[in-house]
């Protein structure tokens, strides 16, 4: 089955769709592709000034600027991938109504565009790490695994959202609100130590995004005790596996829903 999914033709189509996406993104701008690096860089500078110099929300965490940036980069990837995928099926309606291509390729290609951006952003983070003198931990080798987890979580959601959006156009507004709430419920801009209620803190850490971002920070930037990860909060208990179960359920649920809807996309768009 895997061989059929990644047949020569499907790979060619995928690469062409991703290429087109990328070409069209900076269409008409003078700096063109340079914006893919310049944009995150400039955003980081603003966040650095606001949160490190003005608000000082670090709470004593070592290398807080890079800590902050890594969190934002991972969250932005999640946000970009889900929002782009959400409208991808409807946006490619002309293709779906007139040609037979595997529907999942459309969602997959927008996820790859998001992955490329993640890669570029991580380069910027790496530059920041070197510049601010972070000792790269050996546990940084775990980072790809953590990113794969985020990707799978986002993919499950993307499949569900893109299929549901065909029938219910409200989904895009609802998802926007959920993302906004999620952004503040996930310890991205603040340190978890400022959350006084321990139960509440634990609940926050059951969210796969919180778990992944905290683990990524722990793995790459610092093992300092102030970095509260899910497994630290639950002391290695069974609850620490809840985020992984959530990711698995979301992926399977998303796949099944997408598959059940895929055949009627052409009629419903």
């Amino acid at each position, binding site marked *: 089955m895997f061989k059929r999914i990644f047949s*020569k*033709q499907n*790979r*060619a*189509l995928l*690469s*062409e*769709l991703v290429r*087109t996406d990328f*070409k*069209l993104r900076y*269409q008409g701008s003078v700096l063109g592709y340079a914006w893919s690096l310049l944009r995150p860089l400039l955003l980081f500078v603003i966040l650095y000034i606001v949160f490190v110099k003005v608000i000082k929300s670090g709470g004593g965490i070592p290398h807080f600027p890079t800590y902050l940036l890594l969190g934002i980069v991972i969250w932005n990837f999640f946000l970009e991938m889900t929002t782009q995928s959400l409208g991808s099926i409807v946006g490619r309606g*002309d*293709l*779906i*109504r*007139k*040609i*037979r*291509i595997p529907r999942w390729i459309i969602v997959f290609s927008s996820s790859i565009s998001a992955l490329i951006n993640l890669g570029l952003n991580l380069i910027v983070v790496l530059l920041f790490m070197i510049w601010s003198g972070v000792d790269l931990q050996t546990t940084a080798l775990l980072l790809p695994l953590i990113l794969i987890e985020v990707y799978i979580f986002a993919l499950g959601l993307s499949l569900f959202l893109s299929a549901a959006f065909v*029938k*219910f*156009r*409200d989904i895009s507004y*609802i998802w926007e609100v959920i993302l906004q709430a999620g952004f503040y419920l996930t310890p991205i801009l603040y340190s978890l130590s400022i959350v006084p209620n321990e139960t509440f803190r634990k609940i926050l850490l059951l969210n796969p995004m919180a778990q992944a971002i905290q683990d990524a920070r722990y793995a790459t930037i610092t093992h300092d005790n102030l970095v509260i990860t899910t497994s630290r909060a639950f002391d290695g208990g069974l609850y620490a596996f809840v985020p992984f179960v959530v990711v698995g359920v979301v992926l399977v649920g998303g796949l099944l829903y997408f598959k059940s809807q895929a*055949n*009627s996309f*052409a*009629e419903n768009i």
Partner: protein
Amino acid sequence: MADEVAISVNHVGKTFRLPHERQSSIKSVLINSFRGGKRTFERQQVLKDITFNIKKGEFFGIVGRNGSGKSTLLKMLANIYTPTEGNIQVEGKLTPFIELGVGFSPELTGRENVFLNGALLGFNHKEMEAMYDDIVEFAEIDRFMDQKLKNYSSGMQVRLAFSIAIRAQSDILVLDEVLAVGDAIFQKKCYDYFKTLKKNKQTVVFVSHDTGALQEYCDKGIVVENGSIVYEGPIDRVVNTYLDILNETEERHDEQTARPETDSSKDDIKNRWGTGEIKINKVYVGKEGGDEARSFKDEDSQIVIRVQFEAVSSVERPVYGITITDVSGQIIFQSNTLWCEYKTKDIIPGEVVNIEWIIPNAFNTGTLHISPAAADSVGSVIYEWLENAATFKVRKRQKSHGHINTTHKLNVTYEHDN
């Protein structure tokens, strides 16, 4: 090999659910479910119990009126829609051309679009590179390949799309009226491509209204009417059945709505122009012997067109004429009293002149428009021109291309120089 089935369609039906109020927001779903949980929608059966087979190497035609369900059928063959009932089995790879240039993006250059469109048709980058030069040459737009598609004329876009499309190597091609695009020279290329397909015994499913093209290329076909197959068989019979259906519906329509005599005074003034010394009152179309008619078959040897002119001011020896055009506006026939060397009388205000043209029914199948006119004695000042004042239709069973279709004889002799 010859009798192997390429596509087999078994008792296929398709029903669309058309909600009365479009349920595209969660709120409306919630509100409606509170109102007793009934979601009102209409079931529209577009196709019912369709069964036919297409053999390998066949050039198969599907014909039907607009709204007969043939496009839905085509989309199900292409696996874009799934049948509500029955099943469709396709042997081998099927490439549909519901529309040319699917996925073309106006912001990309011609070259980039070629690769994108190629990928959608199932080619990889390397294969596309190999045939890129051929595509550009065939489309005749060499100089424009690095310009954005939005700067192309629509003809250029279509030519580019067609040039990519014909590279598609597939077991079965499905073509939906992608012909009749581009200028005459390019159209000839397209027809040549069709001939090549036929020669190479390529399996093709071809949907068209163009009965001429259907008869020229297809071997077999079906006629779809109101969601069912009304005829399946050799293409000549298919085309005749289709033309009969068209005729019947038109006659029914004519009986209900139009009277053969047109009272031109009520007509829209938009299609009327001239200096106004003479006005046209009535245009009559009929058969020989006086029957008013709008539709003529092989048996009807003459077409009678009678026009009533009325003088508004005094005019010396005016010229009266008619022009018959086809649907595209091309002149098929033109006649007037001057060319017929008929000396007309001077007329005074209120005087009415009836002129009858009796024309042999030499026209080919199609819809024809009559535009009567009156002009001064040398035909240079138009007093009145009534554009498309009346319409009539011709249906010929005799197969023919072109504007003229009359009964003719054929003499064949063979010579040997020995």
